[in-house]
């Protein structure tokens, strides 16, 4: 059932690329594809976390400022020095994990609806990030992300793509081969039954939100590596985009169904559509409208809920 949706999602990507290649020669060339893959990888990272919480019927709206906060932690703690890079990465991921943990505890233990908990957390992170850094992404330093990180994007086959493949492998293994993955789907499909089967529903939920924070932080690290330095508002584009990637990737927003492979396809589809429209020099208003229509078309193709009968 959900494997079929993965195929649809991949089909959607291929269709968008084909249409692009026909209307705009060279659009689907390897060099173009490679860049789109790199750009899509950021969405892919964020969407990995978003997918995990969506699988249990949740949602993570705190992604923008978790991402941004982690990005700033990375530069301020590494000061651009290679020797401090490992520590900085751990710290940045740790921030993501900590915030995710907070979200998870709020949702699972305090029973705050996910929308509220994560929306509130986004505000909290924004306030903390701005207040603590005084708005300077790297307090009086001109340093860049440490050299090894910036190397992620060099070469004909950038390491970033391997990193994304690694994330893909991790997600797939986690969800399909581990007992944790089994529990995730069980909780997503029927939390009450999962609880009565001895699944630690709260624990699973907390773990997933924590992972979502980690993935947002990972995206922050990748974006800093990509641009050299963080900026304020770095994460803003990724909120709705991560949700869109998840659903275009065939994950059911109601929980319990979906695979990360589809989300990879979904991320690529979205980037391809945007890139194509910009290449066609469609004005901004047209781009927004067509983007919306494409998402609708995809939803009509395979995102429909079961008929009530």
């Amino acid at each position, binding site marked *: 059932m959900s494997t079929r949706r993965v195929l649809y999602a991949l089909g959607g990507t291929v269709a968008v690329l084909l249409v692009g290649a026909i209307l705009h020669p060279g659009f689907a060339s390897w060099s173009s594809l490679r860049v789109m893959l790199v750009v899509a990888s950021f969405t892919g990272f964020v969407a990995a976390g978003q997918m995990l919480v969506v699988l249990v019927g949740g*949602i993570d709206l705190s992604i923008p400022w978790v991402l941004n906060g982690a990005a700033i932690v990375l530069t301020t703690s590494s000061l651009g020095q290679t020797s401090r890079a490992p520590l900085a990465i751990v710290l940045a991921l740790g921030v993501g994990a900590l915030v995710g943990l907070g979200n998870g505890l*709020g949702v699972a233990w*305090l*029973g*705050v*609806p996910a*929308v*509220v*908990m994560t*929306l*509130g*957390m*986004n*505000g*909290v*992170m*924004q*306030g*903390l990030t*701005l*207040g603590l850094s*005084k*708005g300077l992404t790297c307090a009086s330093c001109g340093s860049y992300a440490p050299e090894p990180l910036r190397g992620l994007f060099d070469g004909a086959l950038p390491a970033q793509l391997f990193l994304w493949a690694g994330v893909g492998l991790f997600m797939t293994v986690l969800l399909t081969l581990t007992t944790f993955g089994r529990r995730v789907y069980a909780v997503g499909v029927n939390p009450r039954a999962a609880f009565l089967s001895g699944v630690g529903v709260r624990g699973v939920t907390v773990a997933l939100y924590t992972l979502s924070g980690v993935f947002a932080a990972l995206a922050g690290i990748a974006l800093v590596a990509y641009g050299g330095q963080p900026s304020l508002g770095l994460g803003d584009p990724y909120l*709705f985009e991560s*949700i*869109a990637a998840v*659903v275009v990737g065939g994950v059911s*927003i*109601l929980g319990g169904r979906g695979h990360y492979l589809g989300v990879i396809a979904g991320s690529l589809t979205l980037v391809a559509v945007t890139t194509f429209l910009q290449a066609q020099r469609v004005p*901004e*208003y*047209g*781009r*927004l*409208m*067509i*983007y*919306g*229509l494409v*998402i*609708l078309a995809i*939803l*009509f193709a395979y*995102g*429909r*809920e*079961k*008929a*009530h009968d």
Partner: protein
Amino acid sequence: MREALRRVSIGYLVLAATAVAYLVVYTSRLGRFPTSFDYLSILNTTLPLVFVAIGQSLVVLTGGIDLSVGGMVSVCVAVTATTVSSSVFWLVVVLALGTACGALNGLIVAYGRIAPILTTLATLSIFTGLALRVMPVPGGSIPQEVRLVLTNPATPTGLIWLGLAVVGWLVLRRTRFGMRVYAIGSDEASARAVGVPAAAVKLKVYALSGLCSALAAVFYVSTTTSGDANAGNPFILTSIASVVVGGVAFAGGRGSALGAVAGAVALTLVIDILFFSGIDPLYQSLFQGLFLVVAVLLGTVAALAARRRRQA
């Protein structure tokens, strides 16, 4: 329903608490009570959010969510600001436009069977594009007479509209349609099974949300006196926040639009509280985030306590 009443009253409680806090920080800061100017400006600036929140609460009551309110408000603001100065008749067109946008959402959700959050995520993009098309640069205007009738800065005409909105909801609540909205939110499959025409009701609910967005747009243009194609964006999250603070259950079926109205006013008051308490502006969003979580947490705790009491 008593359960629902209890939940709703959380929204009122939060409102009461913020109102008290507002009075306290205001008077301690300025050494006097708020004047009619303050009340009027609170009223007029809240009105757009109040309307969006009512629309949003209707959708949430059916178990859905409407992210496209931002886009609908933007389109309607753009059209209002560009046309109404030529003829007031355009106000009717704006309301129809909003309703049509909402009905489009409703059609897709109810008959296309696409989850509300996804539908409205897509149409948000479409409506925002449309708004940009109508109004590439901010500007436009609204006739002074319209302004005086809708959001008069000197007399509380806004109260009339707020009152009408409240009465509108109370009437709606006392129609079979109103009962059906709750039924669908409570359990859509069951509601259909007992003869509720779920698709038709949802279509109407989303259309009403569009109408509310259009009304919000009209009031927005009336308070600000001109328009902007991005005007609607902030309403997406603030309307959701209002609904939640107002005690409407996200799963649907529980709560009331009046709670959402209370939530909207409370959120506006929080801005004022933060203003007068002299919080470092860099930390402002931190407190807004905390407020949201704490308000909802209180609601959850109270509901839990109520349940305990009843079971004991």
